[in-house]
């Protein structure tokens, strides 16, 4: 549904877009790393992963499944890997998939580890509280950019909690009852102060690009996705008469470059209120 609307330019009901984003799933096959010590054979475990959530928040069943065939002493912190790349639990699942695996066939094949935690590549995830703290920090950072933190600071602690509980329990209505306030802007403006975005590429050293970028130009025109890329990541765009080398992907789709950035921010942000954009090589 999002594909059709955004790639052909036909308007769809904006609320439907919010739901489609929220309920996006990636069929995933978890396999235990071959060098893990088991008491009997470990069967792979299949799961539909929510694109908008975080690995360590939604894989309790995966952990339980594999721990059943292992001895307590062989188990320490769980971590996940795809084709040799440790998966950062603090990146949304949909971002990881788009960036690393979207050109491969489904299901997404993830390897599960319980040993040799890669300290240099991954943050530890000691508890669900750590995920909540990280998530809320991102939400606050996004609002610092959108509203100078005014909206998030005006909310009560219980509203912050509701955002987290909505995400944790996959409750769209519960989440958006609060999140809609973070998507508002003053009547006299045409959008947020700055757009919270991060652009990821596997081909560069830097983890991501994040800069100040206004959704509205000085003349009142709405900036587009193409405007953003031209300004902060020109290498992502095809040269004037050249061949398209990259895909610009959000939630598994390529929005038209003419799409207003303000609209993308309101409808295609992740629950943390950031637009996480992947630049990946055009599949041949």
């Amino acid at each position, binding site marked *: 549904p999002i594909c059709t609307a955004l790639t052909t330019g036909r308007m769809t009901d904006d609320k439907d877009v919010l739901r489609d984003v929220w309920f996006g799933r990636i069929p995933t096959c978890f396999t235990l790393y071959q060098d893990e010590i088991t008491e009997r054979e470990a069967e792979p475990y299949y799961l539909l992963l929510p694109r908008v959530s975080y690995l360590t928040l939604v894989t309790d069943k995966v952990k339980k499944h594999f721990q059943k065939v292992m001895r307590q002493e062989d188990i320490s912190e769980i971590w996940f890997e795809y084709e040799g790349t440790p998966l950062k639990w*603090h990146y949304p699942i949909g971002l990881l998939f788009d960036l690393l695996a979207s050109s491969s066939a489904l299901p997404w094949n993830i390897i599960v580890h319980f040993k040799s935690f890669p300290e240099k590549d991954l*943050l530890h995830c000691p508890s669900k509280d750590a995920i909540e*703290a*990280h998530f*809320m*920090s*991102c939400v*606050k*950072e996004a609002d*610092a*950019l959108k509203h100078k*933190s005014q909206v*998030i*600071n005006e909310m009560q602690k219980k509203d*912050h909690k509701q955002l987290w509980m909505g995400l944790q329990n996959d409750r769209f209505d519960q989440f958006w009852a609060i999140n809609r306030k973070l998507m508002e802007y003053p009547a006299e403006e045409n959008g947020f102060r*700055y757009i919270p975005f991060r652009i990821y590429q596997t081909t560069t050293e*830097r*983890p*991501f690009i*994040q*800069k*100040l970028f206004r959704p509205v130009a000085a003349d009142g025109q709405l900036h587009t996705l193409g405007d953003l890329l031209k300004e902060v990541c020109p290498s992502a765009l095809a040269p004037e008469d050249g061949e398209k080398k990259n895909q610009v992907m959000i939630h598994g789709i390529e929005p038209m470059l003419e799409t207003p950035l303000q609209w993308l921010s309101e409808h295609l942000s992740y629950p943390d209120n950031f637009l996480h954009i992947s630049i990946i090589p055009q599949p041949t």
Partner: protein
Amino acid sequence: LSKMAEESESALQLPPSTAAEGEGPTEVSPETATPDPPSSAAVSPGTEEPAGDTKKKIDVLLKAVGDTPIMKTKKWAVERTRTIQGLIDFIKKFLKLVASEQLFIYVNQSFAPSPDQEVGTLYECFGSDGKLVLHYCKSQAWG
């Protein structure tokens, strides 16, 4: 001042402390004469470096929250690719905190960036008057 682009672990050698053990002011001084850091330090005191060039350092101003010890040298030139975790480790060493003690860093007195976040990016988005102000605290100040 360091103009070397060479990266290194936060290598500032701390001189023997002259601060009172336990009593007295909680201010920790980098010593009577601020030692020059090894030329390849990723964090160095003060700065007059112009901003703009992505290879240059950015200015960070560190402010203590609550009863967290105050750093005598508050203004540091930090390489853009230094992470928040790197900065935390540096402050902990400088303040002589034990490894197990936690230290939280906040931007805009509102959010705690991820430990792998680069200070250069934070400076671009949240810097003002040519510097990035960071508040640090031994306990969670702003959630």
